[in-house]
């Protein structure tokens, strides 16, 4: 049996990689890719806690599914924003989008 710590460490590492992507990427789409990694890391944690806690309590899995819904909402709106910005400003480089209004 795999100890819980392995999953938690894996999830922490994946979260950090995603964080690095979010902080260092210039392209807005790539930033959203990093956010996906972070959300997945959280999901691994949730499911691991379900498995290693009381199995009859489904909270872990329910929250994992809710995270799927949140990820879907985040991606669809986020990418729509990127496309919308691209149409007006012709760029997807996050650094160039430093005005709050144009």
């Amino acid at each position, binding site marked *: 049996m795999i100890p819980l710590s392995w999953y938690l460490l894996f999830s922490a590492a994946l979260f950090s990689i995603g964080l690095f992507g979010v902080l260092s990427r210039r392209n807005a789409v790539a930033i959203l890719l990093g956010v996906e990694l972070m959300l997945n890391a959280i999901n691994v944690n949730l*499911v691991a806690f379900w498995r290693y806690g009381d199995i009859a309590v489904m909270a872990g899995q329910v929250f994992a599914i809710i995270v799927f819904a949140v990820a879907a909402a985040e991606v669809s709106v986020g990418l729509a924003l990127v496309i919308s910005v691209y149409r007006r400003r012709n760029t997807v480089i996050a650094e160039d989008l430093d005005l709050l209004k144009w």
Partner: protein
Amino acid sequence: MTTEQIIFLIVAGATLAAGLLVVTSRNLIHAALWLVATLFGVAILYTLLNAGFIAVVQVVVYIGAIAILFIFAVMLTRKDMRDSGPQHNKTWWLGALVSLLTFGGLFAVLGQWSGLAKTGAELPAGFDSVAALGEALTSANGYVLPFEVASVLLLAAMVGAVYLAFNKK
């Protein structure tokens, strides 16, 4: 070391490597494909956790829909197949530092926690996690409200995204 542990180590290592490639690939389509590989690895970890439903959902939602959405978005927002110029901003080292610190902090916090070496109980025979999930999602003292709120959230996301992507001004 048991077979399960070996499988875990291989899958986890490959997943993290693919995750690193997601954040470092120059070609965004490659980055999206590496994301697919990462998510697939995570799905395998879910099966190791006996959460088959979550694993399949992971493949259906992430690989079947979100990855496709990413690839479409990349193709819609690029004029050139090859990307010129740096893919990382000037302060990428700061990002690397912050994420390393985050990992270090999480590592330190986890090290102090007592429940870390916990191993899970055996699954009770005949336990059907899908049925249990269905019951939890719909019974009145379960998670009915999150269930319906998720629907509203998805509605809001759909309306907002359709509005944003199609606002031709």
